[in-house]
Each structure stands twice: as C-alpha cells, then as structure tokens.
C-alpha cells in the first residue's frame, strides 16, 4: 500500500501542546494555501476527502503540497468522515476531512453526529459558494453551518481569507482539547482564492470563553477517597474518558492499589487489557452478567470517564439505587445528567486519578471479586460456552471471534459496525493494547466499520486492522472497497453473514411476536464483489474450514475479505430488555 506516513507530530488530546508557530514571513498566500499551511503546522499528514466545485481551490493548492500532505480519495463523503474517525480513534490524533459544499457537506452529517456523541476529535473543512451568493440558493449551496450546529462542538464560516490561520488554529484546539469533538469550518470559495498577507501560523493555546477542563477541586477528591476507603463492595465502571485522557496507566495504578473490580462501557473497551485480573467484563444491554447484576449490589460505584448512557443503565429508577456514586468526568454537563453523583470529581481523569490513588488505601476485595467470578461461571455455562465452542451444526459469531483471537493474540485493532456482530465482537474479542476497539457506540451507525477501518490503518500503520461487519452494514458503505483498492490499504474484512438484519430480527423475535418485518436481506456474492475490486477473498460455511479461513485472512499480505456464514437466527445473550433494570438481565 501507499504507506501512510509515519507518526505525525503528536497533538496531545487533553493537554495543550507546545506552541508551534511558523516564523512570521511577510508573504502573500491564497486562503487555500493557508489551509494547507495550517494542516502542516498542526502535524497533519493524512486527509480523507472528496473534491467538488466549491472546494476546488483547496484541492488546487493541495496539488502543490503532495510531498507533505497525503490525500486519501474516498468514494463517498460519509466514508471520508468515518475514515477520519477511525484514524482519530486508532492514533489519538485529530482526523481531517475535506468535502465540497451542498451534497458533499450534507454527506458528512452522519459522521459528525457519530463523532459528536462518541467524542472523536475531527476537523472537517467544507467548501462553500462565493460569499456574495450566500442565501441565494446558488448551485450546491446549503446552509451547512446551521445544519451541523447541533452535531459539532464548534463550527464557523470563513468568508475572508485573512481569518483562516486563527480560525483553523482554534478549530484544532477545540477539536482535541477537553472533551474532544468534531469541528466544521465552512470556507467560501472567494476566501479560498483570495490572496492575503500571511503572517505565519500559531497554534491556539487559549480561548477566553472556553474552558476545556474544569479545575480539580481537592475537596471532592478527598471526599471520594474517603468513600472509597470505607467501601465494602466498591465497583469501577469506566468509559472512553480513560482513552481520550491518555490515562490508561493512571487508571490501572488506581485499580491495582484499590483492588476494585472494573467493568467497561463499549467505548471504554481496550483501555484495560482483557487479561487484567480486575477486568470483570462489559456493562450494559448485552454486557456480562456480573457487571450488570452487581451494579445493583455494590455500595460505592466509581464511574470514570463515562456518561451513563441508557444502553448501560437500563431503567434509571432501577439503577444502582443502593450505591453512593463517585463520578469522574471532564465534562461538567455529564455530572448529574442521568445519574445523580454523590461526589462529583470534575476534571481530566489523567489529573484526578493520580490524586485519588495517592489518597486511597491499598486493598484487596477478594470476596467481592469472587462474586463477579461466580457470575461469570454462570454466564459461561448458560451462554458463553455454547457461543464460543458450539456443538450445533451452524456456526456462531462467537466461535469466529474465538478463532480470530487465536490468530491475532489480542494484538489487532478490531473495528466493528453495528448490530449483533458488534455485540459479539465486543464481548469476546481480546485486547492487549488501548485504542484497539473502534466502533460506533453512541450513534449506532451501520456502515461505520469499513471506512473507519481504512482510517484506523492510516492512524496505526504498523498494526493489524480487522473490520468485523454484518451483511447489512457492509452493504451500506461497500463503495469504500474502491478506496482500499486504489490505496492498497491493508485491512482485513470479516463479514459475519446471517442473511438477516440480525439485531432487529432478534428484537422482532423477542418483543414483536416473531413478525419479521423487512429484516430478511439478500447479499451479493461478497467474494466476487471483492474480486471486482482486486481484493482477495473467501467464504466459509463449515466449521471444518473456519480456522483455515481465519488464518488465511489474517496472514494474507494486503487486504482480504472473509465471509463467514453464521446461524441465521442466533441471538445475542445476555440481554437487559429495554425498559428493564440491569438486575433483570436475561441469560437466555
């Protein structure tokens, strides 16, 4: 493949990087050139995008920067933004997307909403019609600023080129600092072509109206420590905040000193290695039995960088009513939003966790931890062993993931789409390293995985990237096979095909009296399709061929598509039915 460039200058997510500024040079640049200069100054190497009329001056300038900026031509702007998300998630850096005005910009909407709800740092640059045409219904004009206001952390329209260096510096600062999120900068075509007196580029360090993180209040840290020290049955639940805050080490140190069992949300997955003795599994609707049931038995619940999503909590009035709650979060708006915190520990967990660790007693909670292990044995007997080592004829999704684990040893980046395969992959895939689980958690965007895997590979070029996708989701963005072909991106594509929109079918089976409404989905010959894009592939439908198939995919030089035909009507269990409390989780 065109090797993605080696690690770019690390733009640290939550702490302000040292000021990098280009020497003031009194020269004339066009707005479009200033955009390229800004990207270089921010350490950007890779841009995912798609050209069009209103962004042509930027693409024209890009032509002169090809030695320093690689542009990955995607096949659809949605693919572009998901790729940038995958890039950001695997690298911890800000993803960059280019799109033109009108349909180019509106095609970004799903990805913006996804990045907003999953706190992914992105800078999206859209072209816009000439300023004098704004509001005239000009060709490919759309009000992208107002369309994207609720799904961006910040957005801004530029009609004067002189504004560009400061606006882009703000964009990169806002996207990556505090609780990260997507930023969109809409640049009118006249500003792109306009020449102006360029005074160099300085990274933004401070915006007076913006506090990326609240100042830590020691009083709350002390109160939290006191509560934790008294606890008999403390329980830690953690989310992506640990990864976004680059606080994996601080988090592990906190756990190991406190001896508290810890469970993860879907976006927190991989922040703590699967094998860690205090890792007790997954929370939420399809999470593990113990973490759900024991949420309602713990006496102190310590939430780290997570936001009590409804898929985690189930019914709120039946959630951890007995527990006192310590909530560590960088975003003040998350405190008391869904669950009232007894002690709010506001701040970046990279700062608050060490303060807390210093104040807590070294402890072990063996009896309590044993409860989680008992629950795990029950779950293994009821669900897991049949899922991972089935005796029935049909293949299960779980055994495919087990085979994959055996080939990758937990070292791969796993990118999942949305649905049953996503839940199964997150439940059973093993992880040794952080930033290895990339999935659309909050928005649940089908079609996310294939383009996100492309971006993930650019973000972590030396790592194995496996996209696990259902037959439905794959057909939503399969055009990105073209990107994989053209740029020789080495991603493995594992399609778990049950000929159904499986998760919706499962709900129709369980809650709608088996009235299978529009969930029966036909697929093309995926292997032939891959071949058409010059991507090798194979199909497996028998257990005897599964191990070979997975091994062939993983060891294949370059991209490879493996389709595995799995049981048509298998269900994902355990399950907390909608409207039930976490204590009412069903094993079957």
């Amino acid at each position, binding site marked *: 493949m065109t090797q993605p460039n080696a690690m770019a200058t690390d733009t640290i997510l939550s702490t302000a990087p040292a000021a990098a500024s280009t020497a003031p040079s009194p020269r004339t640049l066009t707005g479009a050139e200033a955009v390229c200069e800004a990207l270089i100054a921010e350490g950007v190497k890779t841009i995912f995008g798609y050209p069009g009329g209103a962004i042509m001056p930027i693409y024209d300038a890009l032509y002169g920067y090809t030695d320093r900026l690689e542009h990955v031509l995607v096949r659809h702007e949605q693919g572009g933004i998901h790729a940038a998300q995958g890039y950001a998630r695997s690298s911890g850096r800000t993803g960059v997307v280019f799109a033109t005005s009108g349909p180019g910009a509106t095609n970004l909407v799903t990805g913006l909403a996804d990045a907003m709800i999953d706190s992914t740092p992105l800078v999206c640059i859209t072209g816009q019609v000439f300023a004098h045409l704004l509001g005239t219904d000009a060709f490919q004009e759309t009000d992208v*600023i*107002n369309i994207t*206001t*609720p799904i961006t*952390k*910040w*957005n*801004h*329209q530029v009609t004067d080129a002189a504004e560009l260096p400061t606006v882009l510096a703000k964009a990169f600062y*806002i996207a990556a600092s505090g609780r990260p999120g997507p930023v969109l900068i809409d640049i009118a075509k006249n500003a792109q072509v306009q020449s102006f007196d360029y005074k160099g580029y300085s990274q933004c*360090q*401070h*915006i*007076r*109206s*913006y*506090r990326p993180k*609240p*100042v830590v*209040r020691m009083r*709350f840290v002390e109160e939290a420590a006191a509560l934790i020290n008294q606890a008999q049955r403390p329980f830690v639940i953690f989310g992506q905040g640990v990864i976004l805050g680059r606080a994996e080490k601080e988090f592990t140190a906190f756990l190991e000193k406190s001896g508290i069992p810890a469970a993860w949300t879907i976006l927190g997955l991989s922040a703590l290695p699967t094998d860690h003795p205090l890792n007790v599994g997954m929370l939420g609707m399809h999470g593990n039995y113990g973490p759900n049931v024991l949420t309602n038995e713990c006496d102190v619940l310590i939430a780290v960088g997570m936001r009590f999503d409804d898929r985690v909590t189930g019914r709120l009035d039946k959630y951890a009513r007995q527990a006192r709650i310590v909530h560590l979060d960088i*975003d*003040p*708006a998350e*405190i*008391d*939003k869904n669950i009232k915190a007894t002690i*709010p520990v*506001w701040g970046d967990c990279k700062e608050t966790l060490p303060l807390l660790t210093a104040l807590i007693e070294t402890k072990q909670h063996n009896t309590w931890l044993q409860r989680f292990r008992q629950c795990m044995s029950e779950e293994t007997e009821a669900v897991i062993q049949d899922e991972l080592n089935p005796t029935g004829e049909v293949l299960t999704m779980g055994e495919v993931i087990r085979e994959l684990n055996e080939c990758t040893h937990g070292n791969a980046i796993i990118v999942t789409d949305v649905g049953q395969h996503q839940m199964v992959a997150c439940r059973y895939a093993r992880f040794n390293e952080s930033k290895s689980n990339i999935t659309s958690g909050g928005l649940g965007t089908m079609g996310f995985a294939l383009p996100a895997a492309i971006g993930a590979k650019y973000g972590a070029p030396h790592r194995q990237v496996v996209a696990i996708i259902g037959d439905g989701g794959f057909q939503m963005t399969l055009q990105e096979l073209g990107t994989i072909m053209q740029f020789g991106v080495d991603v493995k594509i594992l399609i778990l095909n049950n000929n159904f929109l499986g998760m919706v079918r499962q709900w129709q089976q369980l809650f709608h009296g088996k009235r299978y409404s529009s969930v029966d989905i036909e697929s093309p010959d995926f292997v032939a399709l891959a071949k058409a894009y010059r991507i090798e592939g194979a199909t497996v439908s028998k257990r005897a061929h599964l191990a070979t198939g997975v091994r062939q995919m993983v060891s294949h030089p370059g991209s490879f598509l493996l389709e595995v035909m799995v049981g048509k009507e298998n269900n994902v269990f355990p399950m907390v039915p909608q409207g039930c409390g976490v204590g009412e989780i069903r094993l079957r």
Partner: protein
Amino acid sequence: MRQEYTITVYTENQVGLLNRIAIIFSRRKINIESLNTSPSEIESIHRFTIVVNETEDVVRKIVRQIEKQVDVLKAYFNTNEEIVWQELALYKVPTDEIAEKAKVERLLREHGARAVVIRRDFTIFETSGHREETDKLIEVLSTFGLIEFVRSARVAIIKHSSGFHDKLKEFEEAEPRQPLASQPVESQQGIFSM
C-alpha cells in the same frame, strides 16, 4: 416544581450563537417564554436573557449545556426573587376615542405609562414593568379600542451579581487561578451558578 427561571448568559459576539443556544431548548422540547439579546456591561460581550417555565433540575441541566458551548463565557439561572426585571410594552389607541372617553393623565399615572407619540389618528403609550402590570393596561385600553399591542422580552439584573468585569479578567488568563466556570457550587449569596 415548575416555575419561572431567568437564565442569563454572557457570550462572545458570534454569528450563529443564537441558534446554537436556541436549539439546546428546542431539542428538549422546552418552550422559551422570552428571549432577549443585548450588549452587556462589557464591550464586545453579549448578554442573553432567557425565560423558561421549568423545574430547577431541567434548568440546571440546560444551563450546563449552554455553558458548554465554546463561545459562551458563563451562564446563570435565577428565580424571580433573585432578580429585578422589566418588560417594555407599547399600545396603540385611536386618539379621538381616548381623548373623548378617558381621563388620560390619571390613566397614565396609574399605570406608570407615558405617551410616546400623539397624532390626530392614533396615540402610542409606553409602559414597562412585570407581565401583570403591562397586561392590566391592555385590559383598560381595550375598552378604548386598542389597535395594536406589543411587548418586549424580559430584561433582568441579578440582585447579588457584581457584574462580569472581574470574571472576564479571570477568563482572559490562560491558566485559571481558581475554580472558575463549571464548578459544582450551586448557590453563593443567592446567585445560582456552576
């Protein structure tokens, strides 16, 4: 318990910010009773005054969402006891009728109103005050053939606020000296804040 809350927001002067703030309410299907934007005591900083009828819990969450916006410096919420507020109202009435039938001077004095324009065909009165006060004058003037009525949004001053000058200085420092925005101190001297 639902009651009237007045939300005061100090912001940068940014195109699009009004929409960004308004959709925080509309997304949650919360009706804005009144909204005013104006300059503040500090040049270049704008002040929004928003009135909603909601529970304290809902209002607190909304205010946190508002304060989270990049171009917002600070947001407060207060009950009616904690603020001094006014609304301005204009009334257009037919001059002949009002002159003929009403004791105009007494009427104006009773309602704290004044005549802004007096023409042969119509007269415009103006008054300011609380909703009930301006409403009362509608009632009275309706009997004299009230032609048009319009009332402004609420503007409010927080009784215990010492203004934004000092706060702004702190905001302008790159590294905050002390807990600033977004701190879980809910009530200080009657000013609800975060």
